[in-house]
């Protein structure tokens, strides 16, 4: 019961802030709303007993990626308080249709979950750092794991090349 009330509150916060991301006139406010969405999703993970994932969600998404977003918004000087002009008017009906399709897909998936399985707490042993590590670092997943580092390497090089293009 308590978990359901908590879920309702957190879901409401996430949805309201998600709407805030879309409708905010100032990009900086959109970004800050997105931070709130990510934090409430992290709290939702916490109610599912997935505390490690919740912490990583905050550290990586809210603590690193959103800082980059804010910096980019400020670098592009989009942060001025004047409202943006909507240059993509023709897209609006398309966006509505696409959104409705997405809602339908998600609803069908949610409906297919048996009711007793939804909102169930995961046992602690399947969500802790140890279990995640055990599958992540097992011999079966060595190659994907090392591939991640190659991906990060490519991203590093890409970031430097993009930012220092004039110097090349």
């Amino acid at each position: 019961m308590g978990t359901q009330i908590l879920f309702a509150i957190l879901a409401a916060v996430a949805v309201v802030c998600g709407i805030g991301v879309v409708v905010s006139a100032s990009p900086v406010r959109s970004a800050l709303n997105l931070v709130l969405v990510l934090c409430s999703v992290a709290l939702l993970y916490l109610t599912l007993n997935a505390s490690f994932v919740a912490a990583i969600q905050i550290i990586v998404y809210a603590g690193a990626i959103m800082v980059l977003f804010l910096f980019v918004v400020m670098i592009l000087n989009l942060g001025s308080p004047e409202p943006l002009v909507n240059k993509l008017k023709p897209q609006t009906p398309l966006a509505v249709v696409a959104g409705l399709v997405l809602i339908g897909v998600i609803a069908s998936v949610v409906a297919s979950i048996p009711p007793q399985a939804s909102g169930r707490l995961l046992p602690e042993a399947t969500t802790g750092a140890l279990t995640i590590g055990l599958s992540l670092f097992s011999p079966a997943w060595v190659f994907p794991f090392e591939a991640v580092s190659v991906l990060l390497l490519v991203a590093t090089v890409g970031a430097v090349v993009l930012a220092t293009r004039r110097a090349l």
Partner: protein
Amino acid sequence: MVTVAPTPGDYLPLLILILMGAFIAVLLVALSWILGPKQPSVEKLSPYECGVTPVGTARDRFPIKFYLIAMLFILFDIETVFLYPWAILYRNNAYLSRGFLLGEMTVFIAILFVGYIYIWKKGALDWE
């Protein structure tokens, strides 16, 4: 000493703590808003630039260096995040050998370190 398996209920104090911290912070702001005098004037409300009339806009563009630092921070932060489950696993398992885990992580870090040397050589870490 018995360590009890954590439950979501163990996070209840943290929830109360966050609410209490927010309450104290909001209370302080509200108190000063209520207690302080209010005599605004145009000069008082203008931005402070050492007593001179403000020149230009305050929200100017700034160097791309900050973007680069934030981007590189994300990449190495993700690397750090991988280290946490690895460190826990390294100490607490009888299933995977430590030599294997160490080699796996060394290769991972070594590949990333190539990128680190690249950005160092490229001068992306220099701040003129």
